[in-house]
C-alpha cells in the first residue's frame, strides 16, 4: 500500500506499523505533526495507542522511558530545542538503556524557520553515545521508524531519528509494510537496570561504552549507509541525510565521484577510511553543524577535507541544490536577484487575536508610567509582540524564561519587571520559576496571556486549560493578586486599571487575560458542525 506523506507523517506511520504502543511529545515545529498524525490515525485509535500531549518534552521523554521499562515500544518526539528540556532524561536513558524499543525523534530547524537557534541534535546523540538514524527521504523516514525499535531492542539503548525541517515538511510517496503487533508487557530481566545509583550506574555506563564498537560495526553494514562507486577519484563525497538529494540533483545521470551516503551513525569508520584512501580530497555535505567534517579534519586541520568549515559551504543555514552545486564548482541557474520592491512579510498576530489587546494596553501603561525595557517574554504567538506595530517585548530566550528573567531583573533593581507568557508555555516550564518568585516575594507582574491553546504550532490542547488560577494559588501567589481579565476592546480601560494596580504592588502578581485563540475557536466550530452531521 502507498500513501503520500510528509516526512514527519512517514515517521508516525512507520512507528505505528512498527509495533509502537505509545507516543509522548510536546508540540514544536517542525516535529508537531508526528504526534498529530498518530492522534488522528484510525488504527492507532482502535488500538488505543497513547498519543495525548505531555506538559513538556522532559515529562514526555520520561513517560516514554517508563513505557519502555514495561517492554513496550515507544517514541518521544520534539523539536531540537525541546531536547534541551528533556536532556536530563535523555543523557541518563542512554545509561539505563531500554527494555522495549525506544525511538527519540528530534526535528532540527537549520535556517531557524520557526526557532531560536539551529543546534544539531547529532551532537546531542554523540554526547549520550547512542546510534542515530538520519533519513534522506520520506521512504527512509518510514523505514527507520519501522525498524528503529528493533535496533533499539537489539542494542538495549534508545535510538535517535534526526530529521530537519525540509524533510519534515515535504511530502512524497511512501510504500508501507505489514503492521507488526505490539510487544507484550514484560519487565526488565535485570531488576536494577533502571536504578542509577552510583554503584549500579558505573556498571551500566561501562556497558554503554562497551557497546560503542557494536554501534559502529552495525553502521558499517547498515542498509541505510551506502558506498556508491565513482570513477573520478579527484574528489570523494560524504553526503549525510537529505544532502544526498542535493548532490544527485546536480548529477541527474549519476555522480562521477565516489559517494558515501551516511544515514546511520556513529560514522561507519571502514567506509570512511576507504573513501579517504581512494580519493584525493573529501567534500562533506551535511545539514546542520559540520560534525562529520570536523571529525575528519581533526585538530590538525587536514587540508584535503572541505565543507562548512573551510567555506566551501556556508557555515550556517540549511543546504539547497544551488549551494551544493557551487561547492562542486558546477554551473547554476541562480542568477537573478530578487526585485528591490519585494518587502519582507513577517508573521503577524491574526485579526481579533487576544494578544493584540494585551499588548495594546500593556504598551499604554508602560508609556504613561514607566521607562521601556522591562518586558520579559517567552515562546509562542505572543513573541510576535516583538515586531511592529507593538515593539512590546524585550526578551525571548527559552520556554519559561520570561518569569525567571523578570525575577532576576527585579532582584537587580529593575522594578517593576513584567513577564508575558502563554498558557501552554506556563505549564511547560513556567510553574517552577513562579515558585522561585513566590519564595522570595519578588516584585514582578506575570501576564499569562491565556488563549486556551498551544497556538503557534496549530492549536493543540493546552495542559493549562482551566487550571491556571488554581496552579498559581497552589504555588503560593496570594489570591488577591491573581486577576482574570477578558481582553476585548471595550475592556481596555479596566485592563489598564488592573495592570497599573498590580505593577504598583510590591510582590508577585499574576494577571490572566483569557480569551480563546480565534483560530482554535474557528476550528472548534467547524468540528462541532462536522460532528452534528
Amino acid at each position, binding site marked *: 500500500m502507498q500513501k503520500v506523506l510528509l516526512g514527519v507523517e512517514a515517521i508516525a506511520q512507520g512507528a505505528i506499523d512498527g509495533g509502537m504502543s505509545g507516543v509522548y511529545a510536546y508540540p514544536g515545529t517542525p516535529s508537531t505533526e508526528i504526534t498529530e498524525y498518530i492522534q488522528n490515525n484510525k488504527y492507532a485509535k482502535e488500538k488505543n495507542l497513547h498519543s495525548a500531549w505531555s506538559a513538556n518534552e522532559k515529562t514526555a521523554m520520561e513517560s516514554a522511558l517508563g513505557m519502555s521499562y514495561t517492554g513496550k515500544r515507544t517514541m518521544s518526539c520534539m523539536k531540537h530545542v525541546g531536547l534541551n528540556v528533556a536532556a536530563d532524561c535523555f543523557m541518563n536513558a542512554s545509561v539505563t538503556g531500554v527494555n522495549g524499543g525506544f525511538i527519540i525523534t528530534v526535528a532540527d530547524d537549520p535556517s531557524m524557520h520557526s526557532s531560536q537557534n539551529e543546534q544539531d541534535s547529532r551532537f546531542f546523540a554523540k554526547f549520550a553515545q547512542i546510534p542515530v538514524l538520519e533519513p534522506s527521504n520520506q521512504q527512509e523516514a518510514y523505514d527507520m521508524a519501522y525498524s528503529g525499535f528493533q535496533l533499539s531492542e537489539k542494542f538495549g539503548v534508545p535510538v535517535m531519528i534526526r530529521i530537519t525541517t525540509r524533510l519534515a515538511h515535504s511530502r512524497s*510517496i511512501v510504500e508501507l509494510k505489514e503492521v507488526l503487533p505490539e510487544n507484550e508487557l514484560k519487565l526488565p530481566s535485570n531488576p536494577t537496570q533502571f536504578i542509577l545509583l552510583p554503584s549500579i550506574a558505573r556498571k551500566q555506563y561501562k556497558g554503554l561504552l562497551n557497546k560503542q564498537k557494536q554501534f559502529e560495526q552495525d553502521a558499517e553494514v547498515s542498509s541505510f549507509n551506502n558506498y556508491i562507486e565513482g570513477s573520478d577519484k579527484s574528489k570523494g563525497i560524504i553526503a549525510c541525510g537529505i544532502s544526498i538529494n*542535493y548532490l544527485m540533483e546536480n548529477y541527474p545521470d549519476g555522480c562521477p565521484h565516489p559517494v558515501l551516503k551516511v544515514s546511520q551513525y556513529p560514522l561507519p569508520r571502514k567506509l570512511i577510511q576507504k573513501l579517504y584512501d581512494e580519493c584525493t580530497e573529501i567534500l562533506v555535505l551535511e545539514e546542520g553543524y559540520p560534525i562529520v567534517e570536523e571529525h575528519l579534519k581533526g585538530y590538525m586541520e587536514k587540508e584535503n577535507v572541505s565543507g562548512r568549515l573551510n567555506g566551501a559551504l556556508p557555515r550556517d543555514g540549511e543546504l*539547497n541544490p544551488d549551494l551544493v552545486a557551487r561547492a562542486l564548482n558546477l554551473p547554476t541557474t541562480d542568477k537573478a536577484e*530578487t*526585485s528591490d520592491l519585494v518587502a519582507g*512579510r513577517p*508573521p503577524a498576530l*491574526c485579526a481579533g487575536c487576544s494578544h493584540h489587546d494585551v499588548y495594546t494596553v500593556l504598551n499604554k501603561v508602560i508609556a504613561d508610567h514607566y521607562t521601556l525595557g522591562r518586558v520579559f517574554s517567552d515562546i509562542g504567538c505572543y513573541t510576535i509582540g516583538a515586531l511592529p506595530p507593538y515593539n512590546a517585548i524585550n526578551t525571548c530566550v527559552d520556554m519559561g524564561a520570561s518569569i525567571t528573567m523578570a525575577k532576576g531583573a527585579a532582584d537587580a533593581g529593575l522594578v517593576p519587571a513584567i513577564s508575558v507568557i502563554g498558557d501552554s508555555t506556563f505549564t511547560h516550564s513556567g510553574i517552577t520559576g513562579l515558585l522561585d518568585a513566590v519564595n522570595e516575594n519578588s516584585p514582578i507582574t506575570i501576564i499569562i496571556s491565556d488563549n486556551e491553546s498551544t497556538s503557534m504550532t496549530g492549536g493543540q490542547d493546552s495542559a493549562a486549560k482551566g487550571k491556571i488560577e488554581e496552579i498559581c494559588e497552589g504555588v503560593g501567589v496570594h489570591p488577591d493578586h491573581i486577576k482574570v481579565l477578558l481582553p476585548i476592546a471595550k475592556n481596555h480601560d479596566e485592563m489598564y486599571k488592573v495592570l497599573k494596580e498590580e505593577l504598583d504592588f510590591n510582590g508577585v502578581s499574576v494577571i490572566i487575560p483569557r480569551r480563546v485563540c480565534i483560530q482554535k475557536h474557528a476550528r472548534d466550530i467547524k468540528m462541532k458542525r462536522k460532528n452534528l452531521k
Partner: protein
Amino acid sequence: MKTNIILAGVGGQGILSIATSIGMAALKNKMYLKQAETHGMSQRGGDVFSHLRISDKPIYSDLIPKGKADLIIAVEPMEALRYVPYLSETGYLVTNTKPFKNIPNYPEVEKVLNQLKKLSNVIMLDADAIAAEIKSKRSMNMVMLGASSPFLNGITYKILQEGIKDIFGKKGEDIVNKNLEALACGKAEADKIITKK
C-alpha cells in the same frame, strides 16, 4: 519529463490546496512527486511557499534550484515577484493581481505589476474578482489553479478535475461543484489571455 512548480502566497490564502490538487492529479497519472511546504510561524500571515515537483522519474531534491521552475503560481503579486529568481528562461508565471496588504511597507501595487508584466511568459488575472463573480470568494485559489492548468505538463484538465473531486468529495457535492466552477473560470481567463498574445 519533470515539472517544477513553485506556489507562493501569504499564510492562509490556500496555496496548499492548489498543491494538493496538482499532487492528486499527478498521482492519478502514476507520477512521482515531492512537495515541500511551509509550516509553523510563517503560517501566521507571513510569506509562504511550496515547492512541488512532479516527474515520471524518481525525484531527488525536495527544493527546486533557482532558475529551474517551469511554473510559478502566485496568489498574490508581491509574492510572485519574490520568487521570480526561481523562474527558468522558458517558465511561466501565473499570478493573481489582487494584493494582500498586511504590512505597512507594501510597495506601490502598480510598480509591482509593471515589473511582472515585463516577464516574457506571464499570465496576470484578478482571481479574487473572478471568484467573487461566481459568489465563491474562498475559491480564489481554484481560479488560480484553473488559470495555471494550461501549463501543467503531463496533467490534463480532466485529471485535474478528477483530483479535485477526490479531495473535496468528503465536503459534499456543492463544494466540489463550486471548486470546479472556479477552476473553469480560471482556465477560461487564462485561455483568453493566451489567445490575445
